């Protein structure tokens, strides 16, 4: 008996391509309180959420070109929650007038064996840090105010040292590819946070170029 002919290609991918729109800024420690008050007023009414996360960045070095980067994050305040694995693509260089940084984004949850799994796959951990701060939401927009700390002894998240005297402020939206309406909303929200914080699109690749030049 012959198997029936396959006339339709099997479905290979199941996810919609999600793009992350990002604006970043920073604020001094002294101005943090006023920023939190302003965000509490502007954003959706919910209990203020704090978080403490430990992020590890894994690299897979190919034979040529840029290494492949995966970011693994786990919550130190909820130790039993699953790990979160994220891939961020290169920023899209299409539209100069677009107000936010746009890059492809793939997010998955993973079990607690993620670090060993990545090591077995060939990834090597490049750097890690601890981020803790507050998270706010307004509709589809997510605003994260966090302070970054360097981990002094690899693997030991208790012993950390602050990276700078400022808090990092990030405004991000996850939207399916092709939907470009969010950047206007993000820009008007960013206007409301001035002059406390200037949220702008900072291209990290430009940063690294200047870094390597010095």
């Amino acid at each position: 008996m012959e198997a029936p002919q396959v006339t339709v290609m099997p479905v290979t991918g199941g996810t919609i391509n999600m793009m992350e729109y990002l604006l970043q800024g920073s604020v001094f420690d002294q101005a943090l309180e006023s920023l939190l008050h302003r965000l509490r007023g502007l954003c959706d009414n919910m209990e203020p959420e704090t978080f403490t996360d430990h992020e590890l960045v894994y690299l897979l070095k190919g034979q040529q070109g840029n290494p492949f980067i995966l970011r693994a994050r786990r919550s130190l305040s909820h130790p039993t929650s699953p790990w979160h694995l994220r891939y961020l693509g290169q920023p899209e260089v299409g539209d100069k007038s677009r107000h936010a940084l746009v890059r492809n984004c793939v997010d998955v949850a993973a079990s607690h064996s993620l670090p060993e799994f990545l090591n077995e796959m060939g990834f090597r951990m490049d750097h890690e840090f601890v981020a803790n701060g507050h998270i706010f939401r307004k509709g589809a927009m997510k605003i994260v105010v966090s302070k970054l700390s360097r981990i002094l002894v690899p693997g030991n998240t208790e012993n950390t040292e602050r990276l700078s005297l400022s808090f990092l402020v990030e405004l991000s939206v996850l939207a399916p590819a092709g939907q470009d309406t969010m950047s206007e909303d993000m820009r008007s929200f960013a206007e409301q946070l001035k002059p406390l914080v200037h949220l702008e699109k900072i291209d990290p690749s430009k940063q690294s170029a200047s870094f390597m030049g010095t």
Partner: protein
Amino acid sequence: MQQREEKQLEAAVESLISRVAHVKNALHSFIYKLENEYERLTWPSVLDNFALLSGQLNTINKLLKNEKTPSFRNQVIIPLLLSPDRDEDLAKLTELRVPVFSHEIVPDYLRTKPDPEVEEQEKQLSVEAARIGPEVAQKQIQTLNKLCSNLLEKLNNPRDDRDAESSAIRQNKPSFNPADTNALVGAVAFGKGLSKCRPPGPVAPGHPGQGPMMSGGPTLQQVTIGGGSNQQAVMGGPGAPQQPGQPGKMPSSIKTNIKSASGSMHPYNR
């Protein structure tokens, strides 16, 4: 002439009664709202009620000051008959608030002088006023007038002055540092200042260019090709997610990995 005065008095009393009835109704509905709908009540609607009452009191005041109104001070109300018995007509007239026209209600309802405590306070105030003398009083009046006019002026000429002052104050205290922003973004994006091979020690924040670390393994900043990456090329194949050919994207390393894997060492040769 007396008839005219009588007619005036009657008309004045009639209009006063109707105005007072309006105030009573407004108070009644306001109290009802406060008692029964207090969960849904908003501050603007409470303010509206107060405004209504104040308007009605204003009309009563105007009515009393009206020149056509005879002076009520010259009229005296004398109770002719007080009885402790319940009077049905009076009860109906007053909506059961005054059922008995007796000795108890006379001091309250027919009072023309202010309460004893209020009288005491007024006496103290007038003694105080007489004590300080007219010049001092005049000076105090002038100071009060000046303060009020200053305040009114500040409130009435808002934007320009206020904005100039506040922007000057804010510029003295910046709340963020762009160099810090760049340092933090660099740390999050590619681990600037965070690389694990870096010896732990104090790092001045916002100073870019720590210099690539020569010790230890290669870091992100140096794009090196590690040895033995061949066996990793196979892993690169299944490990690579989708998106070939996105418009306007900078070329990523994924294509190269796939190419090398399918080119050389595919374990499942067809």
